C-alpha cells in the first residue's frame, strides 16, 4: 500500500482502541452475567440500544450529558433488576437455553417499545458540549469525543474491577461464581447477589449505549450487530472471564481497525476469523477456564 506512514499506523491503532473500548465494556457486562448466573443474555444489545435512546433523550431534555450519563445506567439497571426478578429467576436450573430464548424475546420487545416510543428513524445523537471537534495528539488530529470515550471506559472498567476485587460484595460475587453451595451454606442470600449482578450488567450495557451514542446513529436496531460483535469478544476472551472480556475487546477493536486499513472489505470478516483461530488454538478462549459453558 502506498502512503503507509508511521503516523497512519498510530492513528489506526488509536481508532482501534476507541472501537475496542465499547466492545470491552459491552462484553464485560455480558460476561459478568454469564460468569455469575450462567445466563447468556441475548437482550444485552437491546439494553445497549435502550441506553443510547435514553441518553440522547435525557440529553435533549436536560441539556446535560453528565446528568444523563448517571441517570441512564440507573434506569437500564433498574429494568435489568426487574427482568432478573420476574423473568429470568423462574428459569434457573433449566439449563442455558431457557434464559437464552427468554432474553432473545425480551430484546425484540425492547426494540418494539423504542420503535413505538421514538419512531423507526431513531434520534439524531448529540456530541456533548466541549467534546466536539478534533484534538492534535501529536501524530495527527483525533476526535476529542473518542479520546474521552477511551478514558471513560478505562475508568468504568477500573471501577468495576475495584468493586469486584476490593469490596465485600465483590468477594461474595467471586465466591458465588466459584461455588454457590458454599456461599449459601455461609448464610449469604445468593438470590440477592444474582439480582444485583444482573442489574449491574444491564447498567453497564446502558452506559455503553449512551457512551457510544455520539459516535453513531441511534436507532432501534443498533443493538443487533453490536451484540454479535460482543459475543465474539466474549468468546475470544473466554466465556465468563472479565479480564478476558476487556483484553479481547481491545484486541478485536485493533484487529478490525488494522484489517480496515489493508483489506477494508474484509474488516467485518476479520473478527470472526480471529474468533475461529482463537477457538482452534484455545477452545476455552484466551482467559477462559475449560468447560465454562457447563
Amino acid at each position, binding site marked *: 500500500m502506498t*502512503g503507509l*506512514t508511521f*503516523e*497512519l499506523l498510530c*492513528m*489506526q491503532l488509536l*481508532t*482501534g482502541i*476507541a*472501537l475496542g473500548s465499547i466492545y470491552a465494556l459491552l462484553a464485560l457486562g455480558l460476561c459478568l452475567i454469564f460468569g455469575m448466573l450462567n445466563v447468556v443474555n441475548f437482550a444485552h444489545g437491546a439494553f445497549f440500544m435502550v441506553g443510547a435512546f435514553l441518553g440522547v433523550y435525557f440529553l435533549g431534555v436536560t441539556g446535560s450529558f453528565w446528568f444523563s450519563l448517571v441517570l441512564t445506567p440507573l434506569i437500564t439497571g433498574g429494568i435489568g433488576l426487574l427482568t432478573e426478578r420476574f423473568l429470568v429467576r423462574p428459569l434457573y436450573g433449566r439449563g442455558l437455553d431457557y434464559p437464552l430464548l427468554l432474553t432473545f424475546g425480551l430484546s425484540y420487545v425492547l426494540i418494539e417499545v423504542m420503535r413505538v416510543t421514538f419512531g*423507526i*428513524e*431513531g*434520534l*439524531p*445523537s*448529540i*456530541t456533548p458540549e466541549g467534546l*466536539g*471537534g*478534533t484534538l492534535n495528539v501529536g501524530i*495527527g*488530529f*483525533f*476526535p476529542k*469525543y*473518542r479520546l474521552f470515550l477511551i478514558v471513560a471506559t478505562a475508568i468504568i472498567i477500573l471501577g468495576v474491577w475495584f468493586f469486584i476485587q476490593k469490596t465485600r460484595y465483590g468477594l461474595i460475587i467471586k465466591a458465588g461464581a466459584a461455588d454457590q453451595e458454599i456461599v449459601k451454606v455461609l448464610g449469604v442470600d445468593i438470590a440477592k447477589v444474582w439480582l444485583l449482578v444482573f442489574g449491574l450488567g444491564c447498567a453497564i450495557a446502558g452506559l455503553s449505549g449512551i457512551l457510544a451514542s*455520539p*459516535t*453513531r*446513529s441511534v*436507532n432501534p*436496531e*443498533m443493538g443487533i*450487530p*453490536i451484540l454479535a460483535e460482543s459475543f465474539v469478544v466474549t468468546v475470544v476472551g473466554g466465556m465468563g472471564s472479565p479480564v478476558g472480556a476487556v483484553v479481547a475487546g481491545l484486541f478485536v477493536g485493533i484487529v*478490525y*481497525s488494522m484489517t*480496515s*486499513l489493508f483489506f*477494508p*472489505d474484509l*474488516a*467485518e470478516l476479520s473478527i470472526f476469523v480471529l474468533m475461529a483461530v482463537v477457538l482452534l488454538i484455545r477452545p476455552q478462549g484466551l482467559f477462559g477456564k475449560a468447560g465454562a459453558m457447563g
Partner: protein
Amino acid sequence: MKQKVTNQTRRQMLIGGAAAASAPLWLNVANAQADTIKIGFPTPLTGPFSAEAQDQVKAAELAIKEFNDAGGFNGRKAELLVRDDKLNPGEAATRTLELIEKDKVNFVVGSLSAATQLSINAVCKERKVLFNSISQSDAINEAKDWSVYTFHEALNPTMTAGAVARYSIPRFGKKIVFLTADYAYGHEMVRAFERAGKEMGATTLADIRHPLGASDYSAFLPRIKALNPDILVLCNFGRDLVNAAKQCTDFGLKSSMKIVTPVLLYTSRLAGGPEAFEGIIGGTSYYWGLEDRIPTAKAFNDAFRKMYNGSVPSDYGALGYAGVKSVLAGVKIAKSTDTLKVVTAMENMKYDWYKGPEYYRKCDHQAVQTVIIVESKSKNMKDKYDVFNILTIEPTTEKNMRSCAELGHKA
C-alpha cells in the same frame, strides 16, 4: 355420552355462527376481486430502510385516494396491497409471487433496494405483470434484466451520481476517494460517478469498500485523511450514510475535503441531524422545498400535509406517489387494465405528478426526469422540515443517461 352430544351441538353452533358472521365479508371479497384495481406494493417495512419504506406507503396511499376520490376508472376503485419484503431478495420474490397468484393483483409497484427490485422484476417479468420500480438501479434497465413489463420511476445511479459529479468536480477538484457500501447499488454509484468524472479529467485515488450495514466507519477514516482527496464520495444509503457522515464530521475530514454523496436522502438527514450533515452535497429525486418554483410540487405537498398532520413527503415517499399514479393514469388512458394496453399507454405518456415534466424513455422505460442537487444546512432553518438548500436542478435530458444501445436494447 351426554357430554359428547353437547360438544357436538356446540361445535355445530360455532361453525354455523362463524359462517353467518363472515357471509357479508365473503360477498365483499368476491365483489372486491371483480371490481377494484389492485396494486401490489412490496417494500422493506422492517430493516435499515424502514423509515423510507413507511413514507413510500404513505404517499402511495395518497395516490390511491386521489384516484378513488376522482371517481376511479369507470367506477372501479383502486386498492393498495402492502407487503413487507424485509429488504431480502428472497422474501421480496415470495411476497410478489403471492401478490400475483393469491391476491391476483393487476400491477406491482414498489421496492427499495437494487437487489430486491431485481428479484421482484424477475418474478413480474416471468408472470407478465407490470412492475413500476421506485428504487434506484442501473441493472434493471439493462437488456438482460429488463422486460416490456418493467418500468423504472426512480432515478438511477447513472443519473444521480453523474449529476453530483458534474456539479462537484469543477467546483471542488479532481482527486476523488470513494467510501462505498459493498453491494450492487454501491458499485453502481461509483461506476456512474467515475463515468461522469472521466470526461472532466478526474482521478480515483481509492475506492474503499465497507460491508453493508456497518455501524462504525472510523477505521476507514485515517487512511482517507492520509490520501488527502479533493472530494470524498459516500456511496452508501440509509443508516450507513448517516453513520458515515457523522463519523467523517467527527474526524474532521470536512476541513480538508468536500464530502458529497450521490443520493442525499431527506430521511437520513433527519435521522443524522444538522451537525453531522453540515455542508454535505448530494443528489435527490425530490425535495419538498421545490414547491416555491414548481406548482405540482406545491399541490402534492399540500395534499400530503392534509392527509398526514402537516408533515411533508420525503424523496422516496414521492416516488411511491408517482409510481402508483403513473400506473393508474396508464389505466385511464388505456381505458383498460389489460397489462399490454397499459404498457403502451405509459410509454406514450407525458406527465407531471410532482416535480415537473417527465416521460418514460421508449427503449427501457426509464423515467426521464430532473436531478436536484441539494446541500444540507445547519443554520437559519425555519422548522424541522427545512433541511436543504437547493443548489441547482440538472435539467431533464436523455443525454446524461446511458444510451439504449449501451444498455443492450435494439433501437
